[in-house]
């Protein structure tokens, strides 16, 4: 199993290495760019930094990170299946391994590959927060920030991985089904609430709060906070 895992990891690396290069550069650079831009935009060269003003600016600029996490997860998931799809699964079928075992191994090795941009983001966030003289009352949270990024990227990675593992027809059915559920539920829930005085939650609210899958995207994405 260890040999197969290593072999799979090598294959995943070969498949994703050119994709990883820009991702790593963005993940290292974006936290620094966001913090520096936030300080420059609100304070210019003025010192000391005002906590409330810096947080307001970071609150706006940090909205980029959920998108980066989503893009990173999706790209790594697509890269994981890319080679199999192009070669019509010949390599996978030639292996003495069951289909679920193969998918699980691929999912796990892809998750390991995903750690590379996450580590890059952690380094970027750590440098970014260390470079700014933080006012009293503010603290740097590079690890919590990177952990949130990892969870969000993993979630998107697993979702796209599961969709890419199936046929195009299955993917279409799932995506269209989910979109329809969100739309119909979004309209029906408030209507039923007012008509029958019952407490309902729309599907969008459901997925955005615990235990919904997108809960991790809804929290704070600040590297610096109180």
């Amino acid at each position, binding site marked *: 199993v260890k040999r197969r895992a290593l072999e799979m990891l090598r294959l995943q690396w070969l498949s994703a290495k050119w994709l990883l290069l820009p991702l790593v550069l963005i993940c290292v650079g974006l936290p620094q760019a966001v913090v520096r831009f936030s300080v420059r935009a609100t304070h210019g060269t*003025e010192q000391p930094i*005002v*906590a*409330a*003003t810096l*947080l307001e600016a970071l609150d706006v600029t940090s909205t980029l990170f959920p998108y980066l996490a989503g893009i990173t997860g999706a790209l790594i998931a697509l890269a994981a299946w890319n080679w199999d799809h192009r070669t*019509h*699964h010949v390599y*996978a*079928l030639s292996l003495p391994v069951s*289909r*679920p075992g193969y*998918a*699980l191994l691929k*999912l796990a090795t892809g998750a390991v590959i995903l750690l590379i941009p996450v580590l890059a983001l952690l380094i970027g966030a750590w440098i970014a927060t260390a470079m700014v003289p933080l006012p*009293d*009352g*503010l*603290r740097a*949270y590079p690890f*919590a920030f990177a*952990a*949130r990024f990892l*969870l*969000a990227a*993993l*979630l998107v990675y*697993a*979702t796209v*991985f*599961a969709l890419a*593992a*199936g*046929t195009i027809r*299955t993917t279409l059915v799932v995506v269209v089904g989910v979109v329809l559920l969100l739309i119909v539920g979004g309209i029906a829930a408030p209507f039923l609430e007012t008509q029958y*005085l019952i*407490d309902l*939650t729309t599907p969008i*609210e459901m997925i955005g709060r*615990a*235990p*919904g*899958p997108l*809960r*991790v995207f809804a*929290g*704070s994405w600040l590297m610096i*906070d*109180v």
Partner: protein
Amino acid sequence: MSSLARVAVTACLLLSCAAGAQAQDARAALGRRIDSLKIEFDRQLAEQRQLDSMRAGRARAIATDTMTAGPFIVIDTVPAEVAQVAAAIAERWREYEPMVGAAAARIAGSIVTWRLPAAYVAPRGTTVHQFAPFMHGDRFEHAADFVIRSALAEVLPGDVRAWLHGAGLQLRGGMDWAYRDLATSNSVAAQQCFDDAIAACISALGLADAGRSWEAWYTPEQLRHDVRRRGLGPGRAAACIDARDDTACLEVVRAYGGPYPPLTGAVRGTLLAHALELGGAGSFARLLEDAASVGERLERAAGQPLPQIVSSWRARVQEGRPDMHAGVATAGAWTLAWLALLALLAMRSTRWRLG
């Protein structure tokens, strides 16, 4: 008597007669005016009585059911809703009642309604509170709590309301936001308060004089930052920012009516809630008693000196510091569960079977 003197005497007599006639005319006109005003007053009074009678009639016609909940009267067109709303308010009121004490009489008879038609007009002098259970989760509890707090906020003395800067009466929670405000405020008083200087806390909370130039609240540099943030145009603002003229900064700040207080009205509200909690039974009634200042009112409500109240409030604010890792840990647990589900789905692919 010369002819000239005769003419003069005649002229004087004529003028005095004319003046007398004019005064008589004025008196008559005034009398007519008073009569017409009395008629107008009687007419208005009759109309008002008719309107009041119509209001009472309409209230009786529209409100099909009423119920008493604490000091409130719940009125609605749907009896089931009346019972729901009254139960929610009565439940919440039980928590407030000891604190409010005798002051409950001040809000007695306030009307609460959920879906009363727009045509409903409450009897004069009655306050109507809208029960709005729009929030999810424990929405009835939230709506009932909001109604009670709104009613209590309305009887707050003017100085307390002005001190709260428009913030509502928030009697539970809010300490995490108070911490955030205190930790990030661009005020020397708030920063010293954050570092445990109680006198600075009293000043930052607006319970002591900030000084003619607000020097107890802000340094000149902090005022300059305030001017910059407001994005004011050229002139004195430019002199304040670019030429770093402190006098210009003060002039600009005075022109827009003073700086923002170091801590928001909502944070001040958490101090009020803390004082009421410290005071226990009847603390709200004591808050409403006559007093020279808001600080004195808080002391009476809490039954403690102001520095002691502020000190314990500050300790609670520090305890309210948001845990930045908690959100990640909770989200992490659920994310792992979703990952396991997605892994199961990925393992059930159909690609191999279809080629």
